């Protein structure tokens, strides 16, 4: 999986470091991306100002585009830490919304 290193400003990773880096991003992309997309779908289904069935349709239609964008972000962020941090920020919104709904009902 060797790649041309184009930017010298970023520290080069050792082979083991590279493997951990890819593994970390893959976990974020596959599991984290799905979790965020799933929470966003559930949250938007409740929050969109549409009749309930239409809100569910709209949120679910959109979910795969969101998942795809999250996967691409997980691999293209400058560092794995940054990818995790921004994803966590993104997750906070639907997670907070769902937690509030759950607490009030």
């Amino acid at each position, binding site marked *: 999986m060797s790649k041309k290193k184009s930017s010298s400003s*970023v520290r080069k990773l050792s082979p083991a470091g590279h493997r951990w880096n890819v593994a970390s991003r893959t976990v974020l992309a596959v599991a984290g991306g799905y979790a965020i997309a799933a929470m966003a779908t559930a949250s938007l289904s409740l929050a969109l100002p549409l009749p309930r069935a239409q809100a569910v349709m709209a949120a679910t239609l959109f*979910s795969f585009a969101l998942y795809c964008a999250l996967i691409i972000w997980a691999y293209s962020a400058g560092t794995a830490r940054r990818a995790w941090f921004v994803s966590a920020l993104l997750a906070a919104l639907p997670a907070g919304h769902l937690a509030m709904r759950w607490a009030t009902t």
Partner: protein
Amino acid sequence: MNGLGFRQANSWLHTWSGLLLGWLLYAIFVTGALSFFRDEISFWMQPTQHASVAHADAPQRAVDAMQAMAPDASLWSITLPGPRNPTTQVRWFEQGERRSKFGGQSVVLDGTTAQPLQVRESRGGDFLYRFHFELYGMPRLAARWIVGIATMMMLVAIISGVITHKKIFVDFFTFRPRKGQRSWMDVHNALAVLALPFHFMITYSGLLLLMFMLMPWGVDGAYGGDRQAFFSERGNRAAASAPAPSTDKVPADLIAVTPLVRQAQAMWPSGVEQITVTDPGTSHAVIELRERGAGSLLDRGRSERLLFNGASGAPLESPDAAKPDAFSAIYNVFSSLHLLRFADTWLRWLFFIGGVLGSAMVASGMVLWVVKRLPQRRKQGSHLGHRVVEGLNVAGIAGLPVAIGAYFWANRLLPVSMQARADWEIKAFFLAWAACLVHAWLRPHRKAWKEQLGILSLLLALLPAYDLLHGGGGLLAALTRGSWVAAGMDITLLAFAALSAAGVWFLRSDRAKTSKRPAAASEGMEGVSP
């Protein structure tokens, strides 16, 4: 990725997401492209029905045949001859029998004489269609998840691939032949860009068709897990049922259907697809005519229906289709474009070609992976992972069509009276595929390509030849009858035979050049054989 720019990171993602499930995606694309012609393939796999020709009186003759065969049935369902199948397919249910989609008694009638035709036990095009999203021999749900995950990876590969190529439209017009890796890159780009809207549409709609399985959290959250409530609230599932008549059921003759069919044909340009008669031979009989194809995709290509009292011929109120909301309409358009049940022959061909381009795009991407790593392999010697990918490439890309060819041959060669005949057709498919995999690893890489493409070419070219001798005249007879459904399949088989023969020829001529100038970079698909 650390140390990589945005585009390079996407190039990395494109390479690895494409490779990991590439062979599965290729198989899904190939069997999916063939599924656009599912009915035509099923018909071709019933050679005893090929002489059937649709007749204008087919509706009335089919109803008369039903009156003779099943006068006391609770329901007749008559699928009329059409552009995709020139036979009449009838099904009936006895009194009290549950009316399921595949239950009851079914018979295939000649489109002109309405005499029963011999049916050989075969899954036909349905096997390829099911394989396309449920694979084979595994739990249906698990298979759909695997296909769903592969489809998601396809979406990621498409988007990251587009990001990788900044100059995507310039790349489209670039072709550098016989430059090894660069030629494969150009081919891959051209195939991808040429049908990019199709690739995106077919991938995203594939996800949408599985979306309530893959992403159920919206429904589950908003409806507390009650899917039924969601579907009825979305409300485009109006049940088609006539109001119960107030009078008692007494025996009564069924009126002639020809005038009703004429009336419907005047309204529907593509004609009537199906006649359903409930309680035939009684005063409660209801005749339902269903439109072939559909006018609008917004309601998922719903066909219109007309209902008549079967004893008096009086029109009954037809159920109104609910008008879908905007988001359901988006879903309906995408899923109709994927299922393509509404389409005429030309659009079907266009989508088939899209599917073939998609298959070729996936295949060229995987060949590119091998070719790109050749110089390194030459320097460092053979590598197990590289050899595995090479073998899988040959058996996946050339071996799958060989397996489909074997499936078609089994359909022709297995005795008609054989036990579990349909299963043996499918076994022939998998045995041939397994043989291709073993062959691909035993033979040197380039020879494996040439031999499998050669076998494929022979298998496909000889099928129409076999039918010419054994199948009641085959292609020539079909052309003289003007039966384009059967003839189209034979011509397509010959076209793909020619294409794979061209592949064999390409590999041979490329080899001659490479051996003349071994230092050149034009290695094509040459392997790492010692």
